[in-house]
């Protein structure tokens, strides 16, 4: 069947199971938008107010569904507006496919109107990106983009498609991407990464840097072929036997779980492991929601602004099983102290993360679900009463401050009481984000949308829109602040036109609170440019966009507002809180648990 490039893109999106895309039209992507118009019954296009909002929406959609989010933009400024959203997805390993139009091939490289080298610009923040210069490669390229985004360690892929390619036509047959290099470290072949049996041409990750002779490049001029060596027993996975022995012998096990648990769908295995070993579990921010909030050994987030019990237990353990984490500086503090006197077992799907930030004692490169399943089979049950008593003691020290008044904690808890475990909750970045991590009782897996690695202020509203749509347009919550909300509030227009029931809680303190907190602690209270001193009337602004708008200054007011929210539209609740509220506990940057302020 002879199809145009634009038609091929639509056919490939449908073949990938895509039903919703986010984006913004423009000159060089017109042929694709014309096809989207004709195929509106197959693909729903959500029009954003700004391309950045569309990328964050695709990111939020992907976090909720676990499948690649799709964002479409035109060339030039449309494409550059995607960059922050793509970088955000890259640092949080979110599967995303970005499609950009570009000027027609004869105009490329001539500084044509709205021409930028978006492939060059995004290169450091994508898993891979493509320019399609030949129409007969288009179908395969789109299919390949989806495969790369959703295999191995997930991440964003950009496909730049010149307008002339969208218009040209060629014979189309549904093409599926071949299994590529990510397969070597994917679920079915965990452990192959260091197996000498693996074909060197198929799995570059096999290069054992300690013994350079292991994988000579010299044999590999032939076309790469995949020879998945199925790993079926513990002996075939490097590190697994050592891990089993170390865990069997330890006294105070602690599990440190990250986004890899959710990416791999290993929530049940994590719970089973914790239960079998009586091991408390702390999380990186990306790992939150992978265990039920009411599970006794769920200690919540650890790290710079983590929960007290979680960070201290992590410090006092004699063995840490770190799964699907990359030991970010925000999570570890000073690395030497983080490592001292304990065995660390690091399980991650990405070989490049092994030994990058923390040199663990035992390393296992593989898919979390697969590795945990094998560990569970081999490990004995453990139950160290004194360790569990110590955990209880830490929880008591942590306590639960019951201050009355219009505090972030009370506001967040009042919102949580009115929502269920399947409510998607998004945040922006700053103090309100940390308070949400600490006080919001986390719901089901994949219900938390927050910018971890990049720390993108302005992420929240776009993400909430994408998350709401992914979750059947059910009630969705966004916790934001006057600073973060000010960055991308234009997406209120999108939420209104899509009639999305998003409750937007602005924790409004009139300052850039987290930076101010650092200035207070480390810069002798010189509040350089963190006092906003704005006169923005958020309720009036919300109404101007066509949303509902409210202001709350005490708990009773807030409770009344929350009980009377209108249906089928976004609502903004501007909550005025004290500018000197701080986020505690805090482990100062580069510090250790001994320095914890709580």
């Amino acid at each position, binding site marked *: 069947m002879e199809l145009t490039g634009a038609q091929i893109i639509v056919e490939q999106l449908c073949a990938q199971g895509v039903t919703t895309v986010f984006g913004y039209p423009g000159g060089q992507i017109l042929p694709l938008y014309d096809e989207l118009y004709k195929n509106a019954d197959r693909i729903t296009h959500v029009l954003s107010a700004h391309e950045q909002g569309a990328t964050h929406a695709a990111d939020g959609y992907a976090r909720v569904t676990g499948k690649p989010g799709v964002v479409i933009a035109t060339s030039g400024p449309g494409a550059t507006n995607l960059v922050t959203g793509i970088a955000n997805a890259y640092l949080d390993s979110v599967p995303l496919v970005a499609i950009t139009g570009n000027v027609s091939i004869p105009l490329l490289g001539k500084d044509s109107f709205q021409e930028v080298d978006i492939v060059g610009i995004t290169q450091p923040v994508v898993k891979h990106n493509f320019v399609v210069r030949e129409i007969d490669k288009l179908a395969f390229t789109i299919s390949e983009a989806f495969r790369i985004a959703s295999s191995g360690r997930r991440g964003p892929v950009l496909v730049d498609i010149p307008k002339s390619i969208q218009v040209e036509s060629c014979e189309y047959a549904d093409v599926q991407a071949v299994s590529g290099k990510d397969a070597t470290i994917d679920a079915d072949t965990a452990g192959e990464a260091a197996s000498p049996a693996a074909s060197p041409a198929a799995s*570059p990750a096999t290069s054992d840097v300690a013994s350079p002779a292991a994988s000579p490049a010299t044999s590999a001029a032939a076309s790469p072929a995949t020879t998945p060596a199925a790993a079926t027993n513990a002996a075939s996975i490097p590190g697994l036997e050592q891990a089993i022995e170390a865990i069997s012998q330890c006294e105070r096990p602690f599990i440190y779980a990250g986004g890899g648990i959710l990416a791999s769908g290993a929530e049940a295995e994590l719970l089973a492991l914790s239960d079998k070993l009586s091991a408390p579990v702390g999380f990186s921010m990306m790992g939150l929601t992978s265990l039920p909030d009411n599970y006794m050994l769920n200690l919540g987030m650890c790290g710079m602004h983590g929960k007290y019990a979680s960070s201290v237990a992590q410090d006092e353990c004699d063995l840490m099983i770190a799964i699907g984490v990359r030991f970010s500086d925000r999570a570890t503090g000073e690395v030497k102290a983080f490592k001292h006197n304990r065995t660390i077992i690091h399980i991650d799907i990405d070989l490049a993360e092994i030994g990058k930030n923390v040199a663990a004692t035992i390393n296992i490169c593989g898919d979390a679900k697969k590795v945990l399943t094998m560990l569970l089979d081999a490990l004995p049950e453990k139950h160290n009463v004194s360790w569990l008593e110590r955990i209880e003691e830490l929880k008591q020290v942590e306590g639960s401050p019951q201050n009355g008044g219009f505090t972030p904690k009370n506001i967040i808890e009042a919102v949580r009481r009115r929502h269920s475990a399947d409510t998607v909750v998004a945040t922006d970045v700053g103090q309100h984000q940390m308070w949400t991590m600490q006080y919001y009782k986390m719901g089901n897996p994949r219900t938390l949308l927050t910018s971890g690695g990049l720390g993108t202020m302005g992420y929240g509203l776009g993400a909430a829109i994408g998350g709401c749509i992914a979750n059947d347009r059910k009630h969705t919550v966004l916790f934001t602040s006057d600073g973060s909300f000010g960055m991308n509030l234009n997406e209120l227009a999108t939420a209104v036109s899509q009639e999305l029931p998003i409750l937007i809680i602005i924790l409004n303190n009139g300052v850039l609170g987290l930076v101010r907190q650092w200035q207070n602690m480390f810069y002798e209270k010189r509040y350089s440019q963190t006092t906003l001193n704005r006169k923005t009337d958020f309720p009036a602004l919300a109404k101007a966009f066509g949303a509902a708008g409210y202001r709350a200054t005490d708990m009773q007011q807030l409770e009344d507002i929350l009980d009377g929210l209108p249906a089928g539209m976004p609502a903004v609740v501007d909550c005025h809180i004290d500018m000197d509220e701080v986020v505690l506990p805090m482990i100062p940057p580069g510090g250790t648990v001994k320095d914890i302020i709580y």
Partner: protein
Amino acid sequence: MEKFAVELLVSNHYGVLNRITGLYARRGYNIDSLHVNETENPEYSRMLIVSKGDEYIQTQIVRQLSKLYDVKDVALMARVNP
């Protein structure tokens, strides 16, 4: 710091050299020498890159290179230093 050489088999395609050198540049590692040749199969090129770095840097470079889509094989060559 120790000199080390990495041998790569890569797609013979525009932009590939940029992706590989970008990975060195982002981390501030200078490339001391660089050889690129098309292989007997014109789909691929072979590269030899000499740079300086300790064992940590060498390991990171090799593992990060391995993740690039256009890199089909990568190997750390035997020590270059006398």
